[in-house]
């Protein structure tokens, strides 16, 4: 078994299993904690507040927009870029079809995929540099934030190195970091990719119950 076969075979299945079980465990665990019972008479719908808050918080509050412009720019650039390149890059679509879902969808042309990757890289570097330079951000960051950032950066970097799609070693390196990243994911703040729904929703439900648009 070559190294590539290993990281795309057994290692990949172990990683994706840990990822799936871990994410479900933590997500369901948070749900199981439940919401604190609010005895007051409801002035509005908690469910509506839950849904509203999830979407409302995609937009920055105007009073913070000026202060957090690097954050907003970097955050959107990184997350949108990453989403596009994760699900619409031709090699990823082929991999998803072959290893995960069994079906694929039309992929983006290479130039669009590269532009998405550039946006993601720019955003990630910007956010990381800001995390280090901004004294407040540095204070509230711990090793988990940095490890998550570095791992994500390495996954993206090795993916970028393998862009010629002709060298097996580079593909294997990318897959190796993907596997490490998947295993690390459920036990770290990378979980925010799923838990943002619950945290925003919790706030939204609490305020929705009180009849306030969160």
């Amino acid at each position, binding site marked *: 078994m070559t190294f590539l076969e290993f990281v795309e075979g057994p290692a990949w299945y172990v990683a994706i299993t840990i990822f799936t079980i871990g994410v479900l465990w933590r997500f369901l665990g948070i749900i199981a904690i439940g919401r604190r019972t609010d005895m007051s008479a409801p002035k509005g719908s908690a469910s509506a507040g839950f849904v509203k808050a999830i979407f409302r918080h995609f937009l920055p509050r105007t009073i913070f927009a000026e202060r957090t412009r690097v954050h907003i720019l970097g955050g959107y650039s990184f997350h949108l870029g990453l989403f596009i390149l994760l699900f619409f890059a031709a090699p990823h679509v082929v991999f998803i079809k072959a290893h995960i879902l069994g079906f694929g969808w039309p992929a983006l042309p*290479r130039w669009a995929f590269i532009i998405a990757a550039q946006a993601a890289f720019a955003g990630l570097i910007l956010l990381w540099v800001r995390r280090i330079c901004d004294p407040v951000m540095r204070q509230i960051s711990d090793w988990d934030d940095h490890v998550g950032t570095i791992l994500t950066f390495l996954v993206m970097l090795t993916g970028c190195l393998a862009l010629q799609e002709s060298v097996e070693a580079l593909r294997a390196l990318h897959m190796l970091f993907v596997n490490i990243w998947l295993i690390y994911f459920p036990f770290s703040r990378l979980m925010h990719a799923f838990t943002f729904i619950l945290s925003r929703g919790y706030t939204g439900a609490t305020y929705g119950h009180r009849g306030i648009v969160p």
Partner: protein
Amino acid sequence: MARMKFLCDAERCIECNACVTACKNENEVPWGINRRRVVTINDGKPGERSISVACMHCSDAPCMAVCPVDCFYQTDDGVVLHSKDLCIGCGYCFYACPFGAPQFPQASNFGSRGKMDKCTFCAGGPEKDNSAVEFQKYGRNRLAEGKLPLGAEMCATKALLAGDGDKVADTYRERVVSRGFGSGAWGWGRAYPGQSGG
């Protein structure tokens, strides 16, 4: 060892593009790539000349000199070949080549050219002679079969000559003598400097 050379007799080439087609078919060159091309100068005017041109397998090959991964090598026959496993598709060989021989399969956005492809003098590549892998990457290895490049073999007017440089030069010299003119073998001054013939 013989020094393999190409020679295109501009007085004989009739721009039929048979060499282009023969090469493409024999080597199963991918879509969008022609390893050989026929260029016509002064098309439609008196004194028009057509010349079939591909890699000339230069003695001091510029592609070899500028390749950042050193993927080129020259065989004992003087044929310049390259390894597609090493090629990174940077396009430097295309910039350096005087004859425009290196070809790339993709349009170039964000430097995505794919692996370089060029005339191999029908001599394959670094893989085992006449293996399936060699054929798939580089085309037919006719030299290993004891045959000469198909483009030249197919040439109806025998304008394109390929083979041992001395013999090619002798043939051409005879032609020049019997014609009484046209002694400049196209491209030889650049490709094979300081050597006799042509």
